[in-house]
Protein backbone atom coordinates (compact mmCIF):
# COMPACT_ATOMS: atom_id res chain seq x y z
CA UNK A 1 0.00 0.00 0.00
CA UNK A 2 1.25 3.49 -0.86
CA UNK A 3 1.67 6.03 1.94
CA UNK A 4 0.30 8.74 -0.34
CA UNK A 5 -1.46 8.46 -3.69
CA UNK A 6 -2.71 11.44 -5.68
CA UNK A 7 -5.04 10.97 -8.65
CA UNK A 8 -5.55 13.61 -11.32
CA UNK A 9 -5.32 16.65 -9.01
CA UNK A 10 -6.78 19.87 -10.37
CA UNK A 11 -7.16 23.18 -8.55
CA UNK A 12 -8.86 25.99 -10.39
CA UNK A 13 -7.47 29.41 -9.49
CA UNK A 14 -8.13 32.95 -10.59
CA UNK A 15 -4.84 34.80 -10.90
CA UNK A 16 -3.81 38.10 -12.50
CA UNK A 17 -2.13 37.95 -15.93
CA UNK A 18 0.69 40.25 -17.05
CA UNK A 19 -1.84 43.09 -17.59
CA UNK A 20 -3.33 42.48 -14.10
CA UNK A 21 -6.56 41.05 -15.60
CA UNK A 22 -7.97 38.05 -13.70
CA UNK A 23 -7.63 34.76 -15.59
CA UNK A 24 -8.76 31.27 -14.58
CA UNK A 25 -6.10 28.56 -14.62
CA UNK A 26 -5.85 24.92 -13.55
CA UNK A 27 -2.92 24.81 -11.08
CA UNK A 28 -2.01 21.95 -10.78
CA UNK A 29 -3.59 20.51 -13.88
CA UNK A 30 -4.22 16.77 -13.67
CA UNK A 31 -1.24 15.66 -11.56
CA UNK A 32 -1.01 12.04 -10.35
CA UNK A 33 1.68 10.28 -8.32
CA UNK A 34 2.21 7.63 -5.68
CA UNK A 35 4.72 7.66 -2.82
CA UNK A 36 5.71 4.57 -0.86
CA UNK A 37 6.16 4.52 2.90
CA UNK A 38 9.65 5.70 3.86
CA UNK A 39 10.38 7.05 0.39
CA UNK A 40 11.88 10.47 -0.44
CA UNK A 41 9.87 11.99 -3.29
CA UNK A 42 10.90 15.29 -4.84
CA UNK A 43 8.56 17.46 -6.92
CA UNK A 44 10.44 19.78 -9.26
CA UNK A 45 9.28 22.38 -11.69
CA UNK A 46 9.26 26.08 -12.53
CA UNK A 47 7.60 28.76 -10.39
CA UNK A 48 3.80 28.84 -10.64
CA UNK A 49 3.34 25.28 -11.94
CA UNK A 50 1.49 24.20 -8.77
CA UNK A 51 4.19 22.45 -6.71
CA UNK A 52 3.29 24.24 -3.47
CA UNK A 53 -0.42 23.83 -4.23
CA UNK A 54 0.05 20.04 -4.22
CA UNK A 55 1.49 20.20 -0.69
CA UNK A 56 -1.42 22.41 0.45
CA UNK A 57 -3.84 19.84 -0.99
CA UNK A 58 -2.02 16.99 0.78
CA UNK A 59 -2.22 18.84 4.14
CA UNK A 60 -5.85 19.79 3.35
CA UNK A 61 -5.27 23.53 3.68
CA UNK A 62 -7.23 23.45 0.42
CA UNK A 63 -9.31 20.82 -1.38
CA UNK A 64 -8.86 19.92 -5.06
CA UNK A 65 -11.59 20.86 -7.55
CA UNK A 66 -10.99 17.54 -9.31
CA UNK A 67 -9.17 14.37 -8.31
CA UNK A 68 -8.54 12.61 -5.00
CA UNK A 69 -5.78 12.04 -2.48
CA UNK A 70 -5.36 8.81 -0.53
CA UNK A 71 -3.37 8.39 2.68
CA UNK A 72 -2.65 4.77 3.59
CA UNK A 73 -5.41 3.79 1.16
CA UNK A 74 -8.07 6.09 2.63
CA UNK A 75 -9.43 9.18 0.91
CA UNK A 76 -8.19 12.13 2.98
CA UNK A 77 -11.54 13.90 2.57
CA UNK A 78 -13.03 11.22 4.84
CA UNK A 79 -10.41 11.50 7.61
CA UNK A 80 -10.60 13.88 10.61
CA UNK A 81 -8.84 17.05 9.42
CA UNK A 82 -6.78 17.87 12.51
CA UNK A 83 -5.49 14.29 12.83
CA UNK A 84 -4.66 14.20 9.11
CA UNK A 85 -2.68 17.45 9.40
CA UNK A 86 -0.68 16.01 12.28
CA UNK A 87 0.01 12.81 10.30
CA UNK A 88 0.88 14.60 7.05
CA UNK A 89 2.90 17.52 8.45
CA UNK A 90 3.66 20.56 6.32
CA UNK A 91 6.79 22.70 6.55
CA UNK A 92 5.97 25.96 4.79
CA UNK A 93 8.43 27.82 2.60
CA UNK A 94 8.39 30.98 4.72
CA UNK A 95 8.67 30.09 8.41
CA UNK A 96 5.98 31.91 10.41
CA UNK A 97 7.05 32.00 14.02
CA UNK A 98 4.44 32.17 16.77
CA UNK A 99 4.50 34.22 19.98
CA UNK A 100 6.63 32.86 22.81
CA UNK A 101 10.00 31.10 22.85
CA UNK A 102 11.45 28.63 20.36
CA UNK A 103 10.37 25.85 22.75
CA UNK A 104 6.78 27.20 22.79
CA UNK A 105 6.83 27.10 19.00
CA UNK A 106 8.16 23.55 18.84
CA UNK A 107 5.69 22.26 21.41
CA UNK A 108 2.72 24.03 19.75
CA UNK A 109 1.50 20.95 17.82
CA UNK A 110 1.89 18.46 20.71
CA UNK A 111 0.18 20.91 23.12
CA UNK A 112 -2.94 20.89 20.92
CA UNK A 113 -3.52 17.17 21.30
CA UNK A 114 -2.74 16.82 25.01
CA UNK A 115 0.66 15.13 24.55
CA UNK A 116 3.06 14.68 27.48
CA UNK A 117 4.99 17.93 26.97
CA UNK A 118 7.78 17.01 29.42
CA UNK A 119 8.54 13.83 27.51
CA UNK A 120 8.23 15.70 24.23
CA UNK A 121 10.70 18.34 25.39
CA UNK A 122 13.20 15.63 26.35
CA UNK A 123 12.76 14.06 22.91
CA UNK A 124 13.31 17.44 21.23
CA UNK A 125 16.47 18.04 23.30
CA UNK A 126 17.99 14.83 21.94
CA UNK A 127 17.34 16.10 18.37
CA UNK A 128 18.95 19.53 18.89
CA UNK A 129 22.59 18.60 18.06
CA UNK A 130 21.35 17.00 14.87
CA UNK A 131 19.79 20.35 13.91
CA UNK A 132 23.08 22.13 14.86
CA UNK A 133 21.38 23.79 17.84
CA UNK A 134 22.52 23.90 21.45
CA UNK A 135 19.92 23.74 24.26
CA UNK A 136 19.97 27.53 24.81
CA UNK A 137 18.07 27.95 21.52
CA UNK A 138 14.89 26.74 23.24
CA UNK A 139 14.65 29.87 25.39
CA UNK A 140 15.31 32.31 22.56
CA UNK A 141 12.85 34.65 20.85
CA UNK A 142 12.19 33.05 17.43
CA UNK A 143 11.84 36.44 15.75
CA UNK A 144 15.53 37.10 16.46
CA UNK A 145 16.77 33.97 14.69
CA UNK A 146 18.44 33.96 11.27
CA UNK A 147 16.46 32.69 8.27
CA UNK A 148 18.38 29.41 8.32
CA UNK A 149 17.73 28.94 12.06
CA UNK A 150 14.02 29.75 11.59
CA UNK A 151 13.76 27.16 8.84
CA UNK A 152 15.33 24.50 11.08
CA UNK A 153 12.95 25.45 13.94
CA UNK A 154 10.12 25.26 11.40
CA UNK A 155 11.11 21.66 10.54
CA UNK A 156 11.54 20.77 14.24
CA UNK A 157 8.10 22.22 15.00
CA UNK A 158 6.49 20.00 12.37
CA UNK A 159 8.34 16.80 13.31
CA UNK A 160 7.43 17.41 17.00
CA UNK A 161 3.99 16.13 15.90
CA UNK A 162 5.70 12.84 14.83
CA UNK A 163 4.17 12.87 11.34
CA UNK A 164 4.22 9.78 9.11
CA UNK A 165 4.62 11.99 6.05
CA UNK A 166 6.66 15.21 6.02
CA UNK A 167 5.84 17.77 3.33
CA UNK A 168 8.56 20.35 2.69
CA UNK A 169 7.81 23.40 0.57
CA UNK A 170 11.06 24.79 -0.87
CA UNK A 171 12.89 24.30 2.45
CA UNK A 172 16.22 25.48 0.97
CA UNK A 173 14.97 28.29 -1.30
CA UNK A 174 16.00 31.24 0.85
CA UNK A 175 19.15 29.69 2.36
CA UNK A 176 22.83 30.03 1.51
CA UNK A 177 24.69 26.97 0.21
CA UNK A 178 25.99 25.85 3.62
CA UNK A 179 22.61 26.25 5.37
CA UNK A 180 20.82 24.51 2.48
CA UNK A 181 23.23 21.56 2.70
CA UNK A 182 22.57 21.38 6.45
CA UNK A 183 18.79 21.33 5.96
CA UNK A 184 19.06 18.63 3.26
CA UNK A 185 21.14 16.52 5.65
CA UNK A 186 18.49 16.95 8.36
CA UNK A 187 15.75 15.87 5.92
CA UNK A 188 17.72 12.77 4.91
CA UNK A 189 18.33 12.04 8.61
CA UNK A 190 14.62 12.27 9.50
CA UNK A 191 13.84 9.87 6.69
CA UNK A 192 16.54 7.40 7.77
CA UNK A 193 16.02 7.53 11.55
CA UNK A 194 12.23 7.64 11.73
CA UNK A 195 11.37 6.08 8.35
CA UNK A 196 9.30 9.22 7.69
CA UNK A 197 7.99 9.54 4.15
CA UNK A 198 9.32 12.78 2.65
CA UNK A 199 7.64 14.79 -0.10
CA UNK A 200 9.76 17.82 -0.95
CA UNK A 201 9.13 20.59 -3.42
CA UNK A 202 12.04 22.50 -4.93
CA UNK A 203 12.91 24.44 -8.06
CA UNK A 204 16.66 23.93 -7.55
CA UNK A 205 17.87 20.84 -9.50
CA UNK A 206 21.00 20.51 -7.35
CA UNK A 207 18.95 20.30 -4.16
CA UNK A 208 16.52 17.84 -5.75
CA UNK A 209 19.44 15.54 -6.55
CA UNK A 210 21.06 15.98 -3.12
CA UNK A 211 17.80 15.01 -1.41
CA UNK A 212 18.50 11.58 -2.86
CA UNK A 213 15.02 10.39 -3.80
CA UNK A 214 12.73 9.90 -6.78
CA UNK A 215 12.10 13.10 -8.74
CA UNK A 216 8.85 14.11 -10.49
CA UNK A 217 9.15 16.94 -13.01
CA UNK A 218 6.19 19.28 -13.50
CA UNK A 219 5.58 21.26 -16.65
CA UNK A 220 5.02 25.04 -16.67
CA UNK A 221 1.35 26.10 -16.73
CA UNK A 222 0.36 27.59 -20.08
Amino acid at each position, binding site marked *: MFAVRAENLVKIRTIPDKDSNPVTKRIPDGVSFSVEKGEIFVIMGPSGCGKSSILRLLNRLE*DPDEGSIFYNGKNIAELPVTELRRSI*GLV*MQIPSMFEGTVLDNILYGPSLCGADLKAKKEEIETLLPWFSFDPSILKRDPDRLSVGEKQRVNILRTIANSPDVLLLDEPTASLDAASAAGVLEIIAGINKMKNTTIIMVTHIPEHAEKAGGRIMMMEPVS
Partner: protein
Amino acid sequence: MHTSYIKIDEISLACSLIFMVIAIVFSYIEKTKLEKELMIATVRCFFQLMAVGYVLRAVFKSDKWYFVVILVVTMITVAGFDAARREKKTPGAFLIAVVSITAGSIIVMGIIASLILKVDCWYNPQYIVPIMGMLIGNSMNGASILFNRLYSEIKSNRDKIEARLSLGATPKQALGESVAAAIKAAMIPVINNTMVVGIVSLPGMMTGQIIAGADPADSVRYQIVIMYMLPAAVSITTWISARMAGNRFFTEAMQLREM
Protein backbone atom coordinates in the same frame (compact mmCIF):
# COMPACT_ATOMS: atom_id res chain seq x y z
CA MET B 1 -30.35 71.93 46.12
CA HIS B 2 -32.60 72.93 43.20
CA THR B 3 -35.13 70.27 42.33
CA SER B 4 -36.40 72.00 39.19
CA TYR B 5 -34.53 72.74 35.96
CA ILE B 6 -34.66 75.44 33.28
CA LYS B 7 -36.84 74.23 30.41
CA ILE B 8 -35.71 74.96 26.85
CA ASP B 9 -38.55 76.58 24.89
CA GLU B 10 -38.87 76.65 21.08
CA ILE B 11 -37.02 79.96 20.66
CA SER B 12 -34.16 78.85 22.88
CA LEU B 13 -34.00 75.57 20.96
CA ALA B 14 -33.82 77.49 17.69
CA CYS B 15 -30.98 79.56 19.16
CA SER B 16 -28.94 76.38 19.53
CA LEU B 17 -28.70 76.29 15.72
CA ILE B 18 -26.02 78.95 16.08
CA PHE B 19 -23.57 76.21 17.07
CA MET B 20 -24.12 74.30 13.84
CA VAL B 21 -23.83 77.57 11.90
CA ILE B 22 -20.43 78.15 13.54
CA ALA B 23 -19.29 74.68 12.42
CA ILE B 24 -20.60 75.28 8.87
CA VAL B 25 -18.84 78.66 8.66
CA PHE B 26 -15.54 77.11 9.75
CA SER B 27 -16.00 74.36 7.18
CA TYR B 28 -16.58 76.99 4.47
CA ILE B 29 -13.54 79.06 5.50
CA GLU B 30 -11.25 76.03 5.68
CA LYS B 31 -12.70 74.55 2.43
CA THR B 32 -13.24 71.18 4.11
CA LYS B 33 -16.48 70.75 2.08
CA LEU B 34 -18.34 69.42 5.12
CA GLU B 35 -21.14 72.00 4.86
CA LYS B 36 -23.61 69.58 3.25
CA GLU B 37 -22.89 66.83 5.79
CA LEU B 38 -23.25 69.30 8.66
CA MET B 39 -26.62 70.50 7.33
CA ILE B 40 -27.90 66.95 6.90
CA ALA B 41 -26.63 66.10 10.39
CA THR B 42 -28.44 69.15 11.80
CA VAL B 43 -31.77 68.15 10.26
CA ARG B 44 -31.39 64.43 11.06
CA CYS B 45 -30.40 65.13 14.66
CA PHE B 46 -33.44 67.39 15.16
CA PHE B 47 -36.02 65.01 13.74
CA GLN B 48 -34.51 61.86 15.23
CA LEU B 49 -34.33 63.30 18.74
CA MET B 50 -37.75 64.97 18.53
CA ALA B 51 -39.25 61.69 17.33
CA VAL B 52 -37.55 59.66 20.02
CA GLY B 53 -38.68 62.21 22.61
CA TYR B 54 -42.33 61.70 21.65
CA VAL B 55 -41.89 57.91 21.40
CA LEU B 56 -40.32 57.80 24.86
CA ARG B 57 -43.07 59.98 26.29
CA ALA B 58 -45.69 57.60 24.84
CA VAL B 59 -43.86 54.53 26.14
CA PHE B 60 -43.47 56.08 29.60
CA LYS B 61 -47.14 57.03 29.71
CA SER B 62 -48.49 53.69 28.46
CA ASP B 63 -46.65 51.68 31.13
CA LYS B 64 -47.02 48.55 28.98
CA TRP B 65 -44.19 45.97 28.94
CA TYR B 66 -44.57 45.23 25.23
CA PHE B 67 -43.90 48.83 24.22
CA VAL B 68 -40.63 48.72 26.16
CA VAL B 69 -39.73 45.40 24.51
CA ILE B 70 -40.55 46.75 21.03
CA LEU B 71 -38.39 49.80 21.72
CA VAL B 72 -35.43 47.70 22.92
CA VAL B 73 -35.74 45.27 19.98
CA THR B 74 -35.78 48.23 17.58
CA MET B 75 -32.68 49.72 19.23
CA ILE B 76 -30.82 46.39 19.01
CA THR B 77 -31.86 45.85 15.37
CA VAL B 78 -30.70 49.31 14.34
CA ALA B 79 -27.45 48.83 16.31
CA GLY B 80 -26.86 45.47 14.59
CA PHE B 81 -27.53 47.02 11.20
CA ASP B 82 -25.14 49.89 11.91
CA ALA B 83 -22.33 47.64 13.21
CA ALA B 84 -22.68 45.42 10.11
CA ARG B 85 -22.91 48.41 7.74
CA ARG B 86 -19.55 49.73 8.89
CA GLU B 87 -17.85 46.38 8.21
CA LYS B 88 -19.07 44.61 5.08
CA LYS B 89 -16.29 42.02 4.82
CA THR B 90 -17.42 39.83 7.70
CA PRO B 91 -19.96 37.27 6.46
CA GLY B 92 -23.21 37.35 8.47
CA ALA B 93 -22.12 40.42 10.46
CA PHE B 94 -25.70 41.65 11.04
CA LEU B 95 -26.88 38.46 12.70
CA ILE B 96 -23.67 38.17 14.74
CA ALA B 97 -23.98 41.79 15.88
CA VAL B 98 -27.65 41.37 16.89
CA VAL B 99 -26.97 38.17 18.85
CA SER B 100 -23.87 39.50 20.61
CA ILE B 101 -25.31 42.98 21.40
CA THR B 102 -28.48 41.34 22.75
CA ALA B 103 -26.48 39.00 24.98
CA GLY B 104 -24.11 41.72 26.23
CA SER B 105 -26.80 44.28 27.00
CA ILE B 106 -29.49 41.95 28.39
CA ILE B 107 -27.12 40.10 30.75
CA VAL B 108 -25.72 43.34 32.18
CA MET B 109 -29.15 45.00 32.34
CA GLY B 110 -30.49 41.98 34.22
CA ILE B 111 -27.77 42.28 36.85
CA ILE B 112 -28.30 46.04 37.23
CA ALA B 113 -32.08 45.74 37.50
CA SER B 114 -32.07 42.86 39.98
CA LEU B 115 -28.97 43.45 42.12
CA ILE B 116 -28.20 47.17 42.00
CA LEU B 117 -31.39 49.15 41.30
CA LYS B 118 -33.66 46.38 42.60
CA VAL B 119 -36.51 47.71 40.44
CA ASP B 120 -40.02 46.58 41.38
CA CYS B 121 -41.12 46.31 37.78
CA TRP B 122 -38.70 44.66 35.32
CA TYR B 123 -39.86 46.80 32.39
CA ASN B 124 -39.82 50.16 34.18
CA PRO B 125 -38.98 52.39 31.18
CA GLN B 126 -37.51 55.14 33.38
CA TYR B 127 -34.51 52.87 34.01
CA ILE B 128 -34.63 50.25 31.25
CA VAL B 129 -34.69 52.62 28.26
CA PRO B 130 -31.77 54.98 29.09
CA ILE B 131 -29.55 52.26 30.53
CA MET B 132 -30.24 49.85 27.64
CA GLY B 133 -29.50 52.74 25.26
CA MET B 134 -26.05 53.18 26.76
CA LEU B 135 -25.38 49.44 26.84
CA ILE B 136 -26.53 48.91 23.24
CA GLY B 137 -24.64 51.94 21.93
CA ASN B 138 -21.35 50.94 23.50
CA SER B 139 -21.81 47.27 22.55
CA MET B 140 -22.49 48.34 18.97
CA ASN B 141 -19.24 50.32 18.82
CA GLY B 142 -17.38 47.37 20.34
CA ALA B 143 -18.83 44.92 17.78
CA SER B 144 -18.05 47.27 14.93
CA ILE B 145 -14.41 47.76 15.96
CA LEU B 146 -14.08 44.03 16.54
CA PHE B 147 -15.36 43.10 13.05
CA ASN B 148 -13.01 45.58 11.44
CA ARG B 149 -9.94 44.57 13.41
CA LEU B 150 -10.58 40.81 13.25
CA TYR B 151 -10.81 40.93 9.46
CA SER B 152 -7.57 42.89 9.10
CA GLU B 153 -5.80 40.66 11.65
CA ILE B 154 -6.79 37.49 9.79
CA LYS B 155 -5.87 38.98 6.43
CA SER B 156 -2.45 40.19 7.55
CA ASN B 157 -1.65 37.02 9.55
CA ARG B 158 -2.87 34.48 7.01
CA ASP B 159 0.52 32.67 6.86
CA LYS B 160 0.68 32.33 10.63
CA ILE B 161 -2.92 31.11 10.91
CA GLU B 162 -2.38 28.53 8.16
CA ALA B 163 0.87 27.43 9.85
CA ARG B 164 -1.14 26.74 13.02
CA LEU B 165 -3.85 24.89 11.07
CA SER B 166 -1.21 22.80 9.31
CA LEU B 167 0.02 21.64 12.73
CA GLY B 168 -3.44 20.40 13.70
CA ALA B 169 -5.00 23.49 15.28
CA THR B 170 -8.76 24.06 15.06
CA PRO B 171 -9.91 27.44 13.70
CA LYS B 172 -10.55 28.63 17.27
CA GLN B 173 -7.00 27.68 18.31
CA ALA B 174 -5.48 29.11 15.13
CA LEU B 175 -7.23 32.45 15.63
CA GLY B 176 -6.17 32.85 19.28
CA GLU B 177 -3.78 35.80 18.75
CA SER B 178 -6.01 37.52 16.17
CA VAL B 179 -9.08 37.30 18.41
CA ALA B 180 -7.13 38.66 21.39
CA ALA B 181 -5.85 41.60 19.31
CA ALA B 182 -9.34 42.36 17.98
CA ILE B 183 -11.01 42.19 21.41
CA LYS B 184 -8.26 44.40 22.85
CA ALA B 185 -8.84 47.01 20.13
CA ALA B 186 -12.60 46.94 20.77
CA MET B 187 -12.16 47.30 24.54
CA ILE B 188 -9.65 50.17 24.53
CA PRO B 189 -12.18 53.03 23.95
CA VAL B 190 -14.45 51.94 26.81
CA ILE B 191 -11.45 51.40 29.14
CA ASN B 192 -10.05 54.83 28.22
CA ASN B 193 -13.44 56.42 28.97
CA THR B 194 -13.51 54.69 32.36
CA MET B 195 -9.98 55.97 33.10
CA VAL B 196 -10.60 59.66 32.38
CA VAL B 197 -14.19 60.03 33.52
CA GLY B 198 -14.62 62.85 36.01
CA ILE B 199 -11.24 64.36 35.12
CA VAL B 200 -11.34 64.95 31.36
CA SER B 201 -15.05 64.40 30.76
CA LEU B 202 -18.30 64.61 32.66
CA PRO B 203 -20.55 61.94 31.19
CA GLY B 204 -23.96 62.66 29.70
CA MET B 205 -26.06 60.78 32.21
CA MET B 206 -24.44 62.45 35.19
CA THR B 207 -24.64 65.88 33.57
CA GLY B 208 -28.29 65.26 32.66
CA GLN B 209 -29.20 64.28 36.20
CA ILE B 210 -27.41 67.30 37.66
CA ILE B 211 -29.19 69.67 35.24
CA ALA B 212 -32.48 67.98 36.13
CA GLY B 213 -31.82 68.94 39.76
CA ALA B 214 -30.49 65.71 41.24
CA ASP B 215 -27.89 65.74 44.01
CA PRO B 216 -24.46 65.46 42.31
CA ALA B 217 -23.43 62.87 44.92
CA ASP B 218 -26.35 60.65 43.81
CA SER B 219 -25.60 61.31 40.14
CA VAL B 220 -22.03 60.16 40.68
CA ARG B 221 -23.23 56.84 42.11
CA TYR B 222 -25.33 56.25 39.03
CA GLN B 223 -22.41 57.18 36.84
CA ILE B 224 -20.07 54.77 38.63
CA VAL B 225 -22.54 51.95 37.99
CA ILE B 226 -22.76 53.04 34.33
CA MET B 227 -18.98 53.17 33.92
CA TYR B 228 -18.60 49.68 35.43
CA MET B 229 -21.39 48.13 33.39
CA LEU B 230 -20.06 49.24 30.00
CA PRO B 231 -16.79 47.22 29.99
CA ALA B 232 -18.82 44.14 31.02
CA ALA B 233 -21.34 44.58 28.21
CA VAL B 234 -18.64 45.28 25.61
CA SER B 235 -16.61 42.27 26.85
CA ILE B 236 -19.58 39.91 26.45
CA THR B 237 -20.50 41.39 23.06
CA THR B 238 -16.99 41.26 21.62
CA TRP B 239 -16.31 37.77 23.01
CA ILE B 240 -19.43 36.39 21.31
CA SER B 241 -18.85 38.42 18.12
CA ALA B 242 -15.25 37.19 17.86
CA ARG B 243 -16.21 33.54 18.28
CA MET B 244 -19.09 33.75 15.80
CA ALA B 245 -17.31 35.94 13.24
CA GLY B 246 -14.04 33.98 13.43
CA ASN B 247 -15.78 30.76 12.39
CA ARG B 248 -17.24 32.46 9.30
CA PHE B 249 -13.75 32.80 7.79
CA PHE B 250 -13.25 29.01 7.68
CA THR B 251 -14.78 26.23 5.63
CA GLU B 252 -16.25 23.10 7.20
CA ALA B 253 -12.91 21.37 6.53
CA MET B 254 -11.18 23.98 8.72
CA GLN B 255 -9.64 25.78 5.74
CA LEU B 256 -9.16 29.54 5.77
CA ARG B 257 -11.35 31.07 3.07
CA GLU B 258 -10.00 33.42 0.39
CA MET B 259 -10.30 37.05 1.57
